[in-house]
């Protein structure tokens, strides 16, 4: 347990000390929120869909979590290039504990950012439908964060340079984000979009967060929880396996 804790703590310290990273990773979601929110807001309202900021905020919170959690996987490649990975690999700690520590660290940072984005959204007009539901929203944020931090770990375990990682990020992160219902309602989209969204794990994260924060859910909480829970367990196991095979 102490080993998991110290690895988690390391991740938080690295995050806290890297001010540029904090500013960059909070700035981007805020830009999306402001530009899309105020840009498409009037059209969205004219179509009778209500407040777009209200609709969009859960989607942008999820975006911020997705990016941060997945990119926390980058840290493994980073650690490998700068040699620190070796220090962890020769230590008498099970590979499974290492992955848990790293994943929880990345997830914590991601959720922290998600919460900051939520507060920022409240300044420009977002309001959670019920304060009592906010803890559940944070729970779902954690689940999403762990899922994608574990996915990032799994991917990073297979790669050994930054270029490969960038490529996968661009062909994975962007489709996952855009085809998840984060920025538009899925109900009225053409069927093929709905089908793609239904096999995209992030859709269930967006749905759960939108449900807990604004009261509207498409798939229902139990489906969201089941899909996210099962996938997290599977990806975590695969990530641990791939990580355990790393040789330096």
């Amino acid at each position, binding site marked *: 347990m*102490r*080993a998991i*804790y*110290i*690895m988690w703590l*390391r991740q938080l*310290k*690295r995050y806290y*000390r*890297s001010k540029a990273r904090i500013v960059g990773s909070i700035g981007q979601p805020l830009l999306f929120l402001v530009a899309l929110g105020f840009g498409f807001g009037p059209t969205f309202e004219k179509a009778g869909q209500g407040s777009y900021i209200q609709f969009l905020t859960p989607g942008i919170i999820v975006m911020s979590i997705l990016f941060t959690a997945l990119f926390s996987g980058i840290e493994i490649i980073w650690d490998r290039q*700068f*040699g*620190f*990975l*070796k*220090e*962890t*690999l*020769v*230590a*008498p*700690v*099970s590979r499974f504990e290492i992955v848990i520590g790293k994943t929880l660290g990345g997830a914590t940072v991601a959720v922290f950012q998600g919460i900051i984005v939520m507060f920022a959204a409240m300044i420009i007009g977002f309001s959670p439908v019920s304060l009592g539901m906010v803890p559940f929203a944070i729970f779902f944020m954690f689940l999403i964060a762990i899922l994608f931090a574990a996915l990032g770990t799994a991917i990073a375990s297979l790669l*050994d340079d930054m270029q490969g990682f960038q490529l996968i990020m661009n062909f994975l992160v962007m489709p996952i984000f855009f085809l998840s219902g984060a920025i538009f309602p899925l109900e009225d989209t053409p069927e093929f979009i709905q089908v793609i969204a239904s096999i995209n794990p992030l859709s269930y994260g967006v749905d759960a967060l939108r449900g807990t924060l604004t009261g509207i859910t498409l798939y229902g909480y139990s489906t969201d929880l089941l899909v996210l829970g099962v996938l997290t367990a599977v990806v975590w196991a695969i990530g641990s396996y791939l990580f355990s095979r790393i*040789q*330096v």
Partner: protein
Amino acid sequence: MNIIEAKNLTKKYNSLVAVDNVSFSVKKGEIFAFLGPNGAGKSTTIKMLTTVLRPTSGSMEINGFDPEKDAHEARKSFGIVFQDSSLDDRLTAYENLKYHGVLYGVPRDLLKKRIKEMLDFVDLWDRRKDIVKKFSGGMKRRLEVARGLLHHPAIFFLDEPTLGLDPQTRNYIWKYIKTLNKEKDITIFFTTHYMEEVEQHADRVAVIDHGKIVAGGSVDELKEQTSKESLEEAFIELTGRDIRDQEADGVEQMRQGMRH
């Protein structure tokens, strides 16, 4: 008593044989030098002994444990200073040691005491709160020595510990190593390209070339075997005059190829 034992150790990358049927042993309390030109198989051998690379065939023992089958116990038995820095440069000196101590299961109260002891030992206690990024190459090396010893290992691996350091720092590092070896009976396994370090400090030497052990014994024995005056000449006699960069690249390429 042998604390390190390698028998017919082999590592192949496709058709390239990086380590070829290597056997050697190191006695408890010895200072053992593992020499060879670039790309000869030194680092590959160390990686196998230290559990981060699986051999193709052969057997090993570290402090009585098999690094392959009983990695956990083997890992507790050694400390290591890698060829390239392996510190987290965003953490402070103290935090780097604390991280290490916790991973190695050093109890909380004891850990505090040991960190102080080790940082004093390498004269870095005053700099404990500084981020490692600001450290010079020599300071980083000293910190790595301190870290590698924090859990009181039986064996200390040093892969070119003095590479790129000025003579002052090199002397310092060797002073620490010798002290440890004498006072705590820690077995030292090191590689270097500085032959004078070997002549001054090593009890026994093994020379590896093209993945094979080509000679072994004390420094004097190697000189005798080759009828040379200095270890440097003996080394060149044993391993030839060709420059080996090409081969090192080859091994690296094969390693890269294996991963994809």
